[in-house]
């Protein structure tokens, strides 16, 4: 298992953002659904080794990121796109992606090729030399995806990756996710259930810091056949599970 989480918690003062999560994920695209404040981003930040857990067991790519050496090894094989992508406006697309390739300690000889590949995969080859300050929000999101995948990560964590993308780009992006999921574990946190339905082989639904559902998109859809509300079948499953969890 690339992701092996047992009873993981994270507190911020008196607020418990993640309250005892158990999760296992192997290669494939894993969708993380949930309402605002459910703890998705906190869980992803722990998986990205940005913040340590308050308690519980977290193993990534077969290593314990609590220790410095394994954490550094995990980070070399990790790709992460945070919800709010910060960037340096003066950098070009290529420079920004190269910057992260270097921070991920990729072998120097591989960097130029990997950067070019990543930029092409998010369809920004034509804007490779453009300064980030000149790009639209959707393009910046794709730059963020490019930096996340530049090292061909074994574990890819994407927080709201399709925010700001237009429908055509989202379709393209889902295809990219499926492609990446063939070899790596891709964890996608999103509000958009259609992304999950189209790209994910497995899905978990979080609410109030806990996982209230874990299964396939089809299983989630099945939960909504009788009680759920929403326009799409997956949305009905989503609302039905949430309603059941809160009742």
């Amino acid at each position, binding site marked *: 298992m690339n992701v092996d989480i047992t009873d993981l918690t994270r507190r911020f003062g008196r607020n418990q953002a993640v309250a005892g999560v158990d999760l296992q994920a192997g290669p494939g695209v894993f969708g993380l659904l949930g309402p605002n404040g459910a703890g998705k981003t906190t869980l992803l930040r722990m998986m990205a080794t940005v913040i340590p857990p308050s308690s519980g067991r977290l193993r990534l790519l077969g290593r314990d990121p609590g220790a410095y050496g394994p954490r550094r090894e995990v980070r070399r094989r990790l790709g*992460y796109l945070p919800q709010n992508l910060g960037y340096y406006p003066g950098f070009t697309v290529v420079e920004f992606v190269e910057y992260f390739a*270097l921070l991920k300690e990729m072998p120097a000889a591989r960097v*130029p090729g990997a950067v070019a*590949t990543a930029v092409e995969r998010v*369809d920004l*080859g034509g804007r490779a030399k453009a300064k980030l300050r000149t790009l639209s929000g959707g393009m910046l999101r794709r730059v963020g995806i490019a930096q996340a995948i530049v090292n061909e990560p074994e574990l890819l964590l994407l927080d709201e990756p399709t925010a700001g993308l237009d429908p055509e780009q989202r379709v393209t992006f889902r295809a990219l996710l499926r492609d990446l999921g063939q070899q790596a574990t891709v964890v996608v946190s999103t509000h958009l259930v259609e992304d999950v339905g189209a790209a994910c082989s497995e899905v978990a639904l979080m609410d109030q810091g806990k996982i209230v559902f874990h299964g396939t998109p089809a299983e989630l859809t099945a939960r909504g056949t009788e009680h759920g509300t929403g326009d799409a079948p997956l949305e009905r499953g989503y609302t039905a599970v949430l309603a059941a969890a809160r009742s």
Partner: protein
Amino acid sequence: MTATAPVTPGPRPAVRRPGMTIPGPARLLRLELRHNAMLWLLPVPLALFWYNGYHEIMALPPMWNLRAMTLQNRLLLDLVIPVTGAAAWMGSREGRRNIADLVVGTARPRWARQLATWAATTAWAEVACLACVAVVYVMTARQASWGGPLWWPVAVSAAGVPALTAIGFAAGAWFPGRFVTPLVTIAVFFGLGFGTQAASGDHSYWQISPLTAGAFDIGAAPGVATFYHYLPDLSIAQVMFTAGITLAVLGALGASAARSGPRLRWLTAVITAAGLAAAGTAVALAGTGRLDPHGMIVIPALHDAASNQPVRYAPACSRTPIPVCVHPAFAVFLPAMTTAVGPELTEVAGLPGAPARISQVAEVYQQEPQNGITSLAGVPGGSAFILTDQVPGEPGATSAEFAADLEDTLGVKLIRDVILGGNASAAAARPSQAQLAVIAASVRPGAVWLGPSAADADAPEVSGRPLLALSSPAARAAHRFSALPPAAKHAWLAQHLAALQAGQISPAQLP
């Protein structure tokens, strides 16, 4: 995005350039160099130096010691605001740009990432520093009559730059708010300025300030580091201090990185401790300084006795009846000097007791118990003199003042030594009225004090200058004697000098 290319499954083959691969840290540094605030700010320190330091330095006489030491005194002060500000701005970049989450999850340690940014900032700041040095030194090389560049003052300034960037960068990294840049810049500027002002006396710890060039109250004087070698003792301590500050701050920056590995924590702790030890040792060494007789600071623990030897040089001499010889660094002042004291030289040339030539010698300094410095300006004999520090080009010194000072000192001394018969110090206690009259008649009016009621018995002269009452016989005799043509005065002195020296001539006997 208006057009979307089909997704390409799997990575494309990497495009590899032939030739040597640049290592990752070097690539990172290259990126940081390209996108560094200091690069865009480069014109600011250069402009500040141009308007503040450069004009002041280039107005100084073209002497390496003066310009190099003044450069050290000014350069960092001109650089401190843009350099510290740019470093603080770069240090706070991750926080300001909300990119911390993104970079924290990468493998390269935070400290290594920060060092790359700091190094790029420092590199551009050093470019600014060394460009200023280069301009001053190139211009001085074209103007100076003797000597070569002094590198220790440059080393102190160059070593101060990383300390400024380290302080600014660390402040920005630790407190990444928008106000940290102006706050740390102002704090460092005033800290540097006040630290320099606080220095007093040769034992002051504050002379560790990298702006302090030379001994307190002497600083960059024309005669310092001219007759004797530049003593690097204080410069070594200053470089040790700034290097120590740099190491300590950078080490603390690394030690403060959360969740760093044990090896990195150990390394940064050692670096911090080493930096603090170096800086503390340097301050302690500065406190052991003492004023060298030649105007520089000696730190016994760092002092090389070989540098006490005087510099060998071939003096530059004037073509006057009595040649005036100066250190070649002062050759530019020789015409002004011979103009100022030419009449006196002509008048006494060839007289018994007149020197065959007059040579400039080094000033001798002595530290007083408190802050003061005593200049032992008295030079025995008439064949040597000390040139004033107030040479044309020094702040507040003009050519006219220089000439007047020469007339007042060298001219009076020369005439006195000849008229009083080589026993000036003994005779000066009570020179005769005729001797005073001849001295007064032989030097410029500015060198004689005339008063309506001078007590000629009690105070015939002040500071070697005759003090004559306007209506006294001596004053009338001086007036008569000064009206003679130079040849007549010279002829009379040649005939009657021995009698005049023996006190056998009265004012009434003067022609």
